[in-house]
Structure formats: structure tokens, C-alpha cells
């Protein structure tokens, strides 16, 4: 159905900058805003449904929304208004579109979506350059008591962290990765969670939570969890667990969540915690079960449906079709031998939780 909306938009030529010239400035600007809103929504839905292809690509040229207030646009205008040099009412829409305008031309984004389109992509600035530019143009003028500014800054930072993670995968796609590389990826994932925690736990943006809800950072959890299942004793583990625990509290404390996504997410974390327990079981310090794990166990009930001895062959088959929601990760090295599955006690630990 969303595909339908995008097709209607294309039929109306909303994606085509040249067509906007046929409309008065107010209508032209509203058309651009609608196109970008649709593209960003389409991109998010694609990520959630694991589809690779979305409209966030370089095949169209509609300009991004202007940083202006609604009263700057009037029906009788003959020329477009000048942009503000300070944050306007359109800040969130403008900044989000601006970041994604760079992303859609970026070679690592295209690596994971439609590599053939790299041929028509415009050369785009580095993430570091974009980050500096956003800071100078917008963020340094933003006030954290202002809900619109707050959500703009933190969603942008989260998006930039996600792009850094993506760029990392694009650059380090071989199966053998050093511990430093893995830690670097985890650092980006942790940053994603920290930004999301700022958003989900904020009382200032209470009315905007419906949008924050759309951007649950499952790939960040996934990246951390998969790595910690392999390297449960990595030193970055403590920071990673803390970031996950904080985000869990922010996201799930009040929620009575029965969604399938929660079930999958919950089980992912349970398995990851098990790996850590096994790794530390002979250590002098017993690890206390985090609130997050106890809470997940309570919500998901008994884990009777878990196999007591996970089928290794089915997992090896799964390797060849990596199943990240976004991005579709190159297969990182799945060193099954590193973890002795038969040593793990999959039954729920009595007395805890």
C-alpha cells in the first residue's frame, strides 16, 4: 500500500524538481515536503520489512524542504522565500531530508541497496564533513528545552551513528575481523542506543513519541548481541550491556508489548545473556542477572519452545542468507566452534527473575 502512495506521488511528478516549476512557490514547496515525507516513511517501512529497495536512491532530483516557517509561504507569492539561518518550524523535516539526501547518494548506502545506481550517484561528502556542517548550520543554534530542536538533534545523531556502523560494515566485510574492528562496530551500535535512549526517555518530546516508536533500533541490539554471543568476555561487553539495559528501560518499562518484534528481540537477548553466563560461570564473580533479562523472561513466559540442543545445521544454512532488518549485513564470520553450544544449559534458571 505504501508502494501505491509512492507511485501516485511519482505519477504526480512530485519526485521531479522540474515539475515543481509549474506551480506557484507555496504549492511547489508543499509538493517537495510531501515527496520527502513519503520517501522517508517508505525507507523506514523498507527497513522494517527487510526489503532492500526503497525510494531513497539517486534516481530523482526533488530538492529538500526549505528551512522556513509556514507564514513565510503565502499563496500569492511569485518567488520562493529565503531560508532562515536559524532553526525554523521546519527544522526537523529539513535536517532529516538533508541527511538522507546525502545518504541516498552515498556509496556504502548503495552497496547495501542497489549497487548499480552508484553510476549515477553524485559524489557526496564524508560523514565527518556532514556532521560538522550540521553542527555549524543547525545544532549549535538548537536549544535542548525546545522539543523540536531536541528531537532533531538526537534523531540526527542516532542516524549518523547508524551510518557510521553501515560504513564500517562496507569497509570491513571480510569474514575475519580483528577484535579492534568488532569493538569499533560495537561502539557505533552503543552510540545508536544512547541516542535512542535520550529520545525514548525524554519527557520533553512526549507528543512526538509516536515517531520515535517507529525507529526502534533493533539493528544496534543485533550487532551487539551477535558479537557478544561470539565474544562474551570482550571488555566492551560491560558498556554494551549497560547501553542495552538503559535503552530497554526507556523503551519497554511502561509498555505492555505483545508484538512479535518484542518476542524476537527478547529471545535474542536471552540467548546473548546465556552466552555470557556460560563464559563467566567458572569466574570468581557470579554475574547478577540484569533487570532487562528478568523482565523479558517474565513477559515472554517459559521458554519451553526453545530447543535444548540448537540444530547446528539449520544455523549454518541460515548464515548464507543474513537476515538483518537493515542493513543486510555481509556475513561476518560465524565461528561456530568458538561457542560450545552443548555446554549451555538452555533451561530457565530457577530462582532468578
Amino acid at each position, binding site marked *: *500500500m*505504501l508502494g*501505491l*502512495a509512492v507511485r*501516485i*506521488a511519482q*505519477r*504526480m511528478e512530485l519526485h521531479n524538481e522540474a515539475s515543481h516549476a509549474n506551480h506557484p512557490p*507555496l*504549492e511547489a514547496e*508543499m*509538493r517537495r*515536503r*510531501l515527496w520527502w*515525507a*513519503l520517501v522517508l*516513511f517508505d525507507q523506514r517501512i523498507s527497513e*522494517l*520489512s*527487510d526489503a532492500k529497495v526503497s525510494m531513497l536512491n539517486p534516481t530523482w532530483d526533488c530538492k529538500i*524542504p526549505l528551512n522556513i516557517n*509556514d*507564514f513565510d*509561504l*503565502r*499563496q500569492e507569492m511569485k518567488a520562493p522565500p529565503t531560508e532562515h539561518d536559524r532553526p525554523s*518550524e521546519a527544522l*526537523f*523535516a529539513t535536517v532529516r531530508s538533508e541527511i538522507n539526501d546525502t545518504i541516498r547518494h552515498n556509496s556504502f548506502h548503495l552497496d547495501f541497496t542497489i549497487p548499480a545506481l552508484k553510476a549515477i550517484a553524485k559524489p557526496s561528502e564524508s560523514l565527518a564533513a556532514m556532521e560538522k556542517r550540521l553542527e555549524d548550520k543547525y545544532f549549535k543554534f538548537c536549544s535542548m528545552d525546545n*522539543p*523540536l530542536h531536541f*528531537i532533531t538533534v538526537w534523531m540526527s545523531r542516532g542516524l549518523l551513528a547508524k551510518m557510521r556502523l553501515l560504513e564500517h560494515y562496507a569497509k570491513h566485510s571480510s569474514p575475519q575481523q580483528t577484535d579492534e574492528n568488532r569493538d569499533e562496530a560495537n561502539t557505533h551500535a552503543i552510540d545508536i542506543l544512547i541516542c535512542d535512549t535520550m529520545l525514548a526517555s525524554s519527557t520533553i518530546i512526549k*507528543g*512526538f*513519541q*509516536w*515517531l520515535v*516508536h*517507529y525507529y*526502534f533500533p533493533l539493528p544496534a541490539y*543485533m550487532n551487539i*548481541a551477535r558479537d557478544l*554471543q561470539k565474544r562474551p568476555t570482550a571488555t566492551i561487553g560491560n558498556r554494551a550491556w549497560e547501553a542495552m539495559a538503559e535503552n530497554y528501560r526507556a523503551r519497554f518499562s511502561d509498555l505492555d*508489548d505483545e*508484538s*512479535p*518484534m518484542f*518476542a*524476537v528481540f527478547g*529471545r*535474542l537477548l536471552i*540467548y546473548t545473556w546465556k552466552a555470557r553466563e556460560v563464559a563467566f560461570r567458572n569466574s570468581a564473580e557470579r554475574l547478577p542477572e540484569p533487570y532487562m533479562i528478568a523482565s523479558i523472561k517474565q513477559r515472554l513466559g517459559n521458554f519451553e519452545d526453545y530447543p535444548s540442543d*540448537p540444530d547446528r545445521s*539449520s*544455523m549454518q*544454512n*541460515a548464515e548464507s542468507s543474513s*537476515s538483518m*532488518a537493515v542493513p543486510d549485513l555481509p556475513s561476518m564470520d*560465524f565461528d561456530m566452534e568458538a561457542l560450545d553450544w552443548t555446554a549451555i544449559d538452555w533451561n530457565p534458571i530457577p530462582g532468578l527473575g
Partner: protein
Amino acid sequence: MHEGNDQLLFGPRGSNIDISALHPDQGQIFKLWQVYLENVDPLLKVTHTPTLQPRVLDAASDLSRVPPPLEALMFGIYCVSTLSLTDDDCAAFFGTTRKDSLREHQLGCQQALINCGILRSGDRDSLTALFFYLVSLDPVRTITSRLNRQDFITS
């Protein structure tokens, strides 16, 4: 009229529903409009408040004569505003659960979209209404796709 194609959108319809009866009462319309301006418009910016507000207030005073694209847009606004409310807010403002309210407005929006022939339309208000309707479906909770496979959980 290619009504058969419209069924592709939302499934088979019964007899035509008179959607002017599906609008909330005037006070609730104004409330939903306020919620939209506070919670939704700042983030999406796909409507122009100075030009839309007079049209909405006007329409609310005579719901039997609202042009179809504007009517669809109003229902879209009800949907997306309700999405942004908590259960407590809905109970306080409208005396319903968020889920029930959302469902009601979505049904109205579906019919309104069919009434403006969205599949054939080139009207920006209608497309905006469709966009709001889609956003309000909140697919985060329902999309699972490949997520449910065991291989997703254990590496």
C-alpha cells in the same frame, strides 16, 4: 466509475457509507486539529497551517458539504492525531480507547479515500490523506517478515 479497482485498496465494501456521519463532533474535531498541530505537523510539515486551518474550521461547521479531498485529509488528520495520543489522553478527551478511536477514524478515512478516487487522483490533499492513513497503521508492531526465524536470534 472504476469502483472495482477501489476494492484493491481496502477490500470489498458493503453499501456506500455516508461518511459525514463518521466525523467526530465539532468539539472533538477542534481538539484533534490542535493535537495534530502540536504532535504531528511539526515533524511531518506536509500541510500548510495558515491555508488549511480556515478550510478545516469551515468544513467542521457543515460536514455534509465537504469536498472529498478535504474530507479525506480531515479523516487522515484524525488518524494520525489519534496515533500520537496515549490511551489516557484518548480516554480523557474522547472517552474511548486509543485502539477503538484509531480503528473508527481509519475506517472513515478508507471510505473518504475511495470517495475521492485516490487511485486515479492527482490531488495533493488526497495523497496526503493516504500518507496519514498509512502512518497511522503503525506497522512497527505487525511487521515481522524474516524476524521470526530462529537464525535471527542465535548467530
